[in-house]
């Protein structure tokens, strides 16, 4: 069982040879493949992360723009509503004023005509009374 002979050194040499061969055909190329792959994955991952960050930034920017736009249109609506109310109030006031002035003018005209009529009436009353008086006195 324990007979040592030239098998020992030959086996050692053979093993070193195997290690050298495997170093060339196995360890080096496959290590390179594995490391290339992990580099590739790492760079891809970094790239993807960068792109994700960019996309998130864009989304944030769009969201803020959207919020800005919403604020603007709400402000526009409020302003328009205020304008409309103002115009409506103004128009109402104008119309009321016009109606008032028309009424006053009419009233004044009415008063004038009433006065004229009264005057005419008074003259007529006077002339009639003179006539009545003349007729009555004529008999006398």
């Amino acid at each position: 069982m324990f007979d040592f002979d030239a098998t020992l050194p030959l086996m050692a040499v053979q093993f070193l040879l195997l290690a050298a061969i495997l170093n060339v055909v196995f360890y080096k190329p496959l290590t390179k493949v594995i490391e290339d792959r992990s580099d590739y994955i790492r760079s891809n991952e970094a790239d993807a992360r960068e792109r994700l960050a960019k996309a998130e930034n864009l989304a944030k920017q769009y969201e803020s723009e959207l919020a800005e736009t919403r604020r603007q249109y709400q402000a526009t609506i409020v302003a328009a509503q205020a304008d409309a109310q103002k115009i409506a109030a103004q128009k109402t006031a104008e119309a009321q004023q016009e109606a008032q002035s028309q009424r006053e003018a009419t009233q004044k005209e009415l008063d004038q005509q009433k006065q004229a009529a009264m005057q005419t009436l008074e003259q007529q009353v006077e002339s009639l009374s003179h006539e009545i008086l003349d007729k009555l006195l004529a008999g006398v």
Partner: protein
Amino acid sequence: MLNFLVAPNSFPLASLEVGHHLYWQIGNLKVHGQVFLVSWFVIGLLVIASLLATRNAQRVPRGIQNLMEYALEYVRELSRNQLGEKDYRPWVPFIGTLFLFIFVSNWSGALIPWKLIKLPEGELAAPTNDINTTVALALLVSLAYFYAGFRKKGLGYFAKYIQPTPILLPIAILEDFTKPLSLSFRLFGNILADELVVAVLVLLVPLFVPLPVMLLGLFTSAIQALVFATLAAAYIHEAIEGHGEEEHAP
């Protein structure tokens, strides 16, 4: 050894041969042929799988590339856990090859029916059940951690022997011998014992009874590969880091 288990009239489904080797003569050196045959198979398997995985490497892995990438990430993780983020890279090939070679050896011994291939002597089995293989690997680990220590600290590496107190010098020196010893014998013993237990059980009660033990053997084989590679990495880390360093790993 253990040939007594091969009873001449026993059921011929299984027999045990330990200590029988297929000897090859190279010059005036003797080597264990069956160990090399299976180790070449293991090496071929690893190299072919690697070539298939990297031949057409894609960014999105498929099939065998996925499997080998999983293996690579596993051993990278293992060495990083032991050696730390800063120093682990140059050691991944060594520790990873230790793990993969031992793991594939152990499992090939457990899963592939080598018995079907008859050898003139000895039998094919996991290369790690031969003490030569495990000692070779353990000595390589020793060399590796000495190399790591000297490279990092130069001769200052020896300071770690007397670092907390010179009283521990003999123990520190002893450690350098016990480390490869324990590494090699742990692996050798576990794998050999596993194959022996399976063989004995198959000899005694063939067919279904040994199956749970075989599953346990697969589990132990994987754990042993992990333990060997982890300990190798830990020893290297110890040599690099040392006691008296100002920088302390968190």
